[in-house]
């Protein structure tokens, strides 16, 4: 262990943590002790862990605020589900079809990530944040009005209604406007989710600990200084946005194959969803990968576990959020915590002394 660098050790701990969690859950499931609600959480938790870690790459490592992360998830979810629906009859082996769906979802999301990365090159700070928010909303709005179907003559699109596509008798409607996609094969499961989490951790951690990662963090810490030592800012920013979008896209595919219905209505893919993921990232610690994983798990399960509060559930959640933020981030609270931990340490030290 001594030979390993600190960062490698950290990465290994993260993999170990995820694998241990997986093992524990699997064992409990085998002995039949996993409650239905916990079973239901398994895949969504993986989805939000991937979302949080990939957003942390943009927010924590690159240092840019993105409010449109859920938009990439939306693209991944839709393209993945479309692929699965189209090939449901031709590729009958679910794992193969699902793997291709994930790759396609990630690829499309990456494409959009790169497209959105281009304005990123010109904008900074809150202006960038609002452009990402705008892109997220545009994606959501467009997905909402698309009608898409397939028949023997090929693919059909319409922005008006499913009937305007003029599908032939044998046609199959795939996206039906606001009603979205229904009947996607439910291929997602916990194992696939964990594998994707591990892949995400692998990609992000290796990037962070590489030469590229150090260049990216240099941009975050001081853009002008980084530029002056010859770091290609354009390249690295685009790279981060693309990778982060691709991972979010993969999470989206996992999402769309976990529930048989997919619509962009409500808060699923809009700025509210993006902000929820941002909450995970900030509470877990900006730039802290392990923190993102842990925060996503806790904060996803917390509102579900608060169900016994019935009507007061979201109120309590809001208060918990504010209090935890104040406790974790306020300089005064930090001081207080340091004093307390110092005192505790001193107490123990004293005890040891007296014992000795």
């Amino acid at each position, binding site marked *: 262990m001594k030979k390993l660098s600190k960062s490698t050790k950290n990465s290994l701990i993260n993999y170990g943590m995820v694998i241990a969690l997986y093992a524990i859950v699997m064992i409990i499931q085998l002995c039949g002790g996993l409650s239905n609600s916990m079973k*239901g959480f398994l895949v969504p938790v993986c989805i939000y862990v991937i979302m949080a870690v990939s957003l942390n790459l943009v927010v924590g490592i690159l240092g840019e605020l993105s409010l449109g992360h859920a938009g990439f998830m939306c693209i991944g979810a839709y393209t993945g589900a479309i692929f699965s629906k189209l090939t449901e009859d031709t590729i009958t082996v679910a794992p193969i079809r699902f793997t291709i769906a994930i790759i396609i979802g990630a690829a499309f999301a990456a494409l959009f990530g790169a497209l959105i990365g281009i304005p990123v090159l010109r904008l900074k700070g809150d202006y960038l944040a609002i452009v990402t928010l705008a892109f997220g909303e545009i994606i959501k709005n467009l997905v*909402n009005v698309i009608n898409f179907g397939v028949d023997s003559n090929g693919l059909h699109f319409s922005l008006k209604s499913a009937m305007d596509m003029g599908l032939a008798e044998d046609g199959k409607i795939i996206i039906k406007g606001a009603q*979205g996609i229904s*009947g996607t094969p439910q291929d997602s499961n916990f194992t696939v989710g964990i594998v994707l989490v591990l892949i995400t951790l692998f990609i992000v951690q290796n990037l962070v600990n590489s030469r590229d990662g150090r260049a990216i963090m240099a941009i975050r810490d001081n853009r002008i200084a980084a530029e002056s030592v010859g770091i290609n800012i354009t390249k690295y920013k685009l790279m981060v946005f693309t990778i982060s979008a691709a991972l979010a896209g993969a999470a989206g595919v996992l999402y769309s194959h976990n529930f048989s219905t997919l619509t962009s*209505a*409500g808060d699923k893919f809009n700025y509210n969803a993006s902000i929820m993921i941002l909450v995970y990232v900030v509470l877990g*610690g900006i730039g802290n990968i392990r923190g993102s994983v842990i925060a996503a798990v806790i904060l996803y399960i917390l509102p579900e*576990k608060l169900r016994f509060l*019935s009507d007061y559930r979201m109120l309590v959640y809001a208060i918990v959020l504010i209090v935890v933020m104040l406790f*974790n981030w306020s300089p005064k609270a930090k001081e207080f915590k340091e004093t307390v931990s110092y005192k505790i340490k001193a107490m123990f030290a004293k005890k040891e002394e007296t014992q000795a």
Partner: protein
Amino acid sequence: MNKFAKKLMALGLSAMMTVPFLTACGGGSESGSASNGGDSASASGTVFKIGGIGPVTGGAAVYGLAVKNAAEMAVKEINAAGGINGVQVEFKFEDDVHDAEKSVNAYNTLKDWGMQMLMGTVTSTPCQAVVEETHKDNMFQLTPSGSAVESIKYDNAFRVCFSDPNQGLGSAKYIGENGLASKVAVIYNSSDVYSSGIYEKFSAEAANQPFEIVAAEAFTDDSKTDFTVQLQKAKDAGAELVFLPIYYQEASLILQQAATMEFAPKFFGCDGLDGILNVENFDLNLTKDVMLLTPFAADAQDEKTQKFVSDYKAAYGDVPNQFAADAYDAIYIIKAAAEKAGITPDMSTSDMADAMKKAMTEITYDGLTGAGMVWSADGEPTKAPKAVVIAVEEVTNDDGTKTLTGSYKAM
């Protein structure tokens, strides 16, 4: 994040993860045996456990709360009258914030609680996700208001309300057959499953009817305050009737803005418009002569409706809308079917569902939302929609002040 916070987080995480597992292990023997012999209910007591799912927070909370309240009221009444087959009923309602994913979570939570039958979900999209789960578990599901076609696509699911295409079809036919207008404009919510579902069928059926759709204007959930553009286009196109397959909150704004613009066509809506008379502080004059096709009207004169409305008002302080009526009916429909099927709480949920499925197609139910309702095996109810027009009159109160009251009149 500093060390202290990290430790705190880790501690929290471990607590969060272990608590549910521990409780799960405690109940493990129970749920484990449910699949074999199905004595989970007997282990948990001799009651029927009915679950409900719908949004009680978030933008759609108004529908979920109405369903929750009315269902709880119905359950109370049933229990006071001796329960179902002499067995008491327990009802539990979980929030889904109008989100498919949260809805499935709510469903799983209810399963842990020991739910045997599901009355839900309230909104269509979550219902489509939950129906997959109830189908897998073969649990009986009756949605009060999930109106999309796919919401009940399996044989274990039934609904109380009309399906969306049904309403679109019914509205188009009614407008055409009664010659209400020759030029019709539609304003619908393109981001809403309910609204776009009705509109789609309406516009398809319009081709067979003697009227023409001169303007079809959409709005979305993100911009549902300003309808002047849509109204202006309808006005410019010379629409005599504006069809509003939307909910009453937006409709109340549309009526107000149309009045400001001095655009006075006929307005025609579906069951989503019910409730417009009860928007607090709304100028009822605007609703005069609005027509709607609805199975439920809160001021119908029959005894059943009147009792329901006065009880609901006494308990929750509001006039119930059609969601509440659907839910109230749903609970009584479950009761009727359960009595027909002769189910007992010690049956497994799957056996219960099989018995209920059969009984549902055999019962005839007279409820708030329709008389003589019958169900086909695909889960769709057959009942007659009532077309009503809103009449507004001025009544003089005891203290001499005058107030407006609105009421539905049959057409």
